[in-house]
């Protein structure tokens, strides 16, 4: 495994945009996700923000994968998508469960457990 750029042909279409822009946009998306988690109180929106973070990772992985012409990155993306789907199922179930008991999905109201 070479630490520097591997001597593999990278398709020209991809080369049109430099790798660092992918890095920047992914990071930006990731940070937007974090800010969403930090500022919102609605459990669903927090959840969506987390999904945004995961997707920014997907984008980053694909970018790296393409620039290296290495498929493992893309394989990982499929894993992330599958796992994220499982998480959605469980997460929504938990949120529904809470909605049934409290008629609200405001996380700010959930502070019975503390200290």
């Amino acid at each position, binding site marked *: 495994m070479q630490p520097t750029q591997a001597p593999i042909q990278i398709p020209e279409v991809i080369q049109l945009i430099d790798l660092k822009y992918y890095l920047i946009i992914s990071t930006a998306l*990731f940070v937007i996700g974090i800010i969403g988690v930090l500022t919102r109180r609605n*459990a669903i929106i927090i959840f969506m923000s987390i999904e945004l973070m995961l997707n920014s*990772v997907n984008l*980053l992985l694909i970018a790296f994968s393409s620039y290296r012409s290495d498929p493992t990155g893309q394989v*990982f993306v499929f894993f992330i998508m599958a796992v994220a789907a499982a998480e959605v199922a469980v997460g929504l179930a*938990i949120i529904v*469960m809470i909605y049934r008991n409290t008629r609200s999905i405001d996380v700010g109201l959930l502070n019975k*457990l503390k200290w």
Partner: protein
Amino acid sequence: MLPIILLSVFGIVLLFLGFLKTRAVLLPAALLFILIALGAGFLEWNKSYLYFGDMLLINNLAILFSTIVLISAFMVVALSGDFLEDEMAQPAEYYAILLFSIVGAMMMIGYENLIMLFVGVEILSVSMYILTGSDKRNLRSNEAALKYFLMGSFATGFMLFGMALLYGAVGSFTLTDIKSYILLSHGRPSLLLYMGELLVLIGMLFKVSAAPFHFWTPDVYEGAPTLFTAFMSTVVKTAGFAALLQLLSVSFSAIYGFWWVILAAITALTLLAGNLTAVYQNSFKRMMAYSSISHAGYLLIGLAALGQQSRSALVFYSLAYSLATISAFGILLLVAKQHTTDGRPDESYSAFNGLSRNNPLLAFVLAVSMLSLAGIPLTAGFWGKFMLFSAAVDRGMVWILILAVLMSAVGIYYYFRVVIAMYFREGQAGRIRVAPFYQFILIAATALTIILGIVPGLFQNIM
């Protein structure tokens, strides 16, 4: 590898067994399955194999950690008799989820590829989200599940971002590739690698509840049904530390100088936060949550002072900690059932008042487990701490050592509160009826704690 496949199949089998009219078969079946997996694991003893296209590595260390996980799971399942009595519960599903989560834990223990780590972590975590919220009508359980879920996925996001950055730097997810990349970079690896390592580390530290990422722990542990708290605080922790050990010792030992300061700082913080906050608690269960944070701190010493001794010290400590924790929660389950205040089991210290009078066995078991957690000699916990501390000595980390020793003194204070309540306080606890098998598990765990405390060498010969 065999246990992983077996447990996956067994989990599905258990789901089907749930269709049967008689629930009585579930518990023995689950126990049997875990035992088979335990036996199957040892088939690969002293051999070192790579599986699944070099994604999973099974060696002796992995088998030992898996054994601890399986023993903990066995004990937790054995203590779960209550499920079968509860009409509303879905025991088949809980057992199946437990088995699946063990698969996740074993993937975390033996991973050779970061993809495997991610999948393992997620299998384990998603199972835990479900189990935490399994008491559906209890608002505390709901709250715990949501907190765990939101924060857990949030932390997973960081871990994934870190993995992506590592991939960007190295071009591979394999641990050995990362290692050789670092070695070939002549001390100047790309910034992406450093960033990636820190983020993965943070994601994993969250899972083992190291400060300052520990805030979820007390709330989740308190809200979750006690049985699953026992499972979480042992299996998840053991698997998490095995994963961290793998990551740091295989891939990143070459840049030890980069991360040890951070890890040492986090260790100190974890020790302080866990031990100091535990002092103020009035609920035994919540105290145990903080205690689990503090034990994460002790285990982190083994990582921050990564060296020859770290492996055996971490394995030994995980075992000692798991045995003591599960027997403590086992007693809590029994005692809390006796006293209920407005329908909720009483989990405060006062529930233990005068326990020794009518239930000397239970009191003794709990006393031994508290002594072990506090690290008093002639219990397994003492040697666990001893080995971890001597690892710190080897690295010359005197400050961490002094802090850890001081904090273990603070620990004695809150662990002994239970012992004092049991032996020196008057209480109206009646005789608690304990099922023979339940009793056997408690006695076995206590005996093992004492045996390991008297002849720790016995265990080391196995290593």
